[in-house]
């Protein structure tokens, strides 16, 4: 099983056009449905660890993209939730004032390699010709997921 690409093609959660104004609200918005998927054993702790990680250092990899993540004992497997925020986006930090795509990752503490593989795969996905623009412009969840499948298979 190609874990990162399978997870990207079929993320645990996809949320489109989330209407929030702050980083904290954006994190909570994606976290709430993600915390309900099998594999998350401690909802509150997962959120705390996500917020703590975002506080310590930037979680953005591009102007419009953030990867809030936590290596935490609150999850038993790697979970991925993707949220698209409404334009003009949310400021995650001073250098990234208009984040619109949020890839939220929860990784068990022992799975260092799995975490790096997933982050690397997401990075490659966003560099695939037309995928980032397509994700921002997708009209429906089905269209959004189709782009993820295409990007993951590229």
């Amino acid at each position: 099983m190609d874990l990162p690409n399978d997870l990207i093609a079929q993320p645990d959660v996809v949320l489109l056009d989330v209407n929030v104004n702050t980083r904290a609200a954006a994190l909570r918005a994606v976290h709430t449905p993600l915390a309900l998927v099998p594999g998350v054993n401690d909802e509150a702790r997962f959120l705390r660890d996500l917020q703590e990680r975002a506080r310590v250092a930037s979680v953005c990899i591009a102007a419009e993209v953030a990867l809030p993540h936590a290596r935490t004992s609150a999850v038993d497997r790697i979970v991925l939730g993707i949220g698209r925020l409404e334009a003009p986006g949310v400021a995650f930090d001073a250098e990234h004032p208009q984040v619109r795509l949020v890839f939220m990752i929860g990784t068990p503490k022992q799975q260092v390699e799995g975490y790096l593989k997933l982050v690397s795969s997401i990075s490659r996905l966003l560099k695939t010709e037309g995928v980032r623009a397509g994700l921002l412009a997708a009209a429906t969840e089905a269209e959004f997921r189709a782009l993820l499948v295409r990007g993951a298979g590229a």
Partner: protein
Amino acid sequence: MKAVTDPAALLMRRLLRLLRWRLWIQEKLQFTEWQITLLWAALAGFLGALASLLFSVLAEGIHELLTGYNSGVVETMRQLPWWARILVPAAGGLLAGLTLLFGQRLTREQSSTDYMEAIVIGSGDLPVRSSLLKSAAALFTIGSGGSIGREGPMVQLAAMMASMLGRWRQFSPPQLRLLVACGAAAGIASAYNAPIAGSFFVAEIILGTIAMESLGPLAVAAVVAALTVRVMTNAHQLYRVPAFTLNSPWEMGPYIVLGLVAGTVAPWFLRSLRAAERWFVGTSMPLIARLVLGGIIVGDIAVFVPEVCGNGYTVVLSILNGHIAWAALLLVFVAKWVATASTFGSGAPGGVFTPTLFMGASVGYLFGAAVHTLWPTGASSPEAFALVGMGAFLSAATYAPVMAVIMLFEMTLSYDIILPLMLCSVLAYYTAKGLEGQSLYSEALKRKTAAIPADLLSTGSVRDLMKTKPETVPATARFAEIARMFLTVRINHLYVVDADGRFLGAVSLHDIKPYLGEPDLAGLVIASDIMREDFPRIGPKQSLSDGLAAFLGVTAERLPVVEPESGQLVGSLAKGDLLLALVEKRKKTEV
């Protein structure tokens, strides 16, 4: 595709590319800590050979300065008038004494210069000034014709060079001791043009083990030293001898007896050296006077028997090639025994290894000649008995039969004599051990071991071996910073600590290696994202056995040393240091 123009991004990309190249090279060459040790051993061998060559040149220069002749010591003594034969060794003793006296004032605070002590019970730290002064004193003794070997100072200098090298590279004590041992092996290898024997001399006599952890570096150092000497001089096998063969199986009978004889005489030879030392010390004369007296005794003997001067090399050559009659040799044998005891007992710096070879050759030849007279077919060639006698006597004196057999083979390249040589050396070893229980070196080592506090030997905690100040990064260190650290420091695990220095985990180079070409990760990933919190660790007070157990099932070459109560990272423990220390500890227990 958009070109990257940001200088910081460009720099980062280059940095990551550089690290990828380094890792590629590292993977292809697969340099482990042990392989790095071999490289340093090779350098120690090279430097040791240079030091040995320099000492030889200086010894010949001093000899020419004192005598006006540039021929061998025995040849020179034959040409000197009787009064000069007394005066030159006495003057050599005076100069050696003055050098040592001057050295005592200059180096009062320094530790022992003995390379064996530095390897076996010390930290591997050989003081430079003291070693140089001791070697300078040895130059005067040897250059003036003292009945002592030059291999001792050569080994000392080679070991000192290795010690300097190890201290410069800030080696841990076990590594430094191993490097000094490599220097000693290089010294023997270059002195006798015998790399295998050089390795086994140190392994068998000093380290007391032929474990590959130590023998490998010793062999590398010895081979490099021998090669260096061969390239820089016209070195060949030390003793050119005719081909000796075992003419009849019946000859093994006399060879067995020779083994017993050599094993009996060798302990007496060693006892006589110690007795002479006690006598000289008992005279209560100052060191200079003792050295002058030792020189005068040698000089007096040399008036009648000039062959006693020097280390005995030329006489051994004459014996092995049948150029000396047994009656003349008997006289030289007795005179040389007294002369060596006088020089050694007076406290002159130098070695007794080559004089020991002379004693063995003489005993062997005299025994072979006696058997030949009574039973010609039982000893058709007394010279062959001389050769076997050298090995047997050396084995009995050093308690190192393997080294003795190898050394004799290497020095003569005479394989035909190997069967009686092996048998005789083993018999002599067991005979001497049964009679005496002390070898040429074991007594000195035992004395030194007894002189150090008992608790120093019994210590065996991780704290003694750990290296302090390991490379660390904070939990917030970015991927780029971590990559840069891996590029500058040759490690496979980088320790992550919090602001108070508490150990949090370790970032593995193996984990991040596949992602070094991805600049996006450089700004996103931080140490706490990728550190392994369950990385094994050990406490500073834990025993060495605990340390070894901690390495079981772990591929890491080093483990973090963490205070169990506070969680503070206090150092790191290398697997190589641990293995060396355990080998050393076992040896010390045996001593």
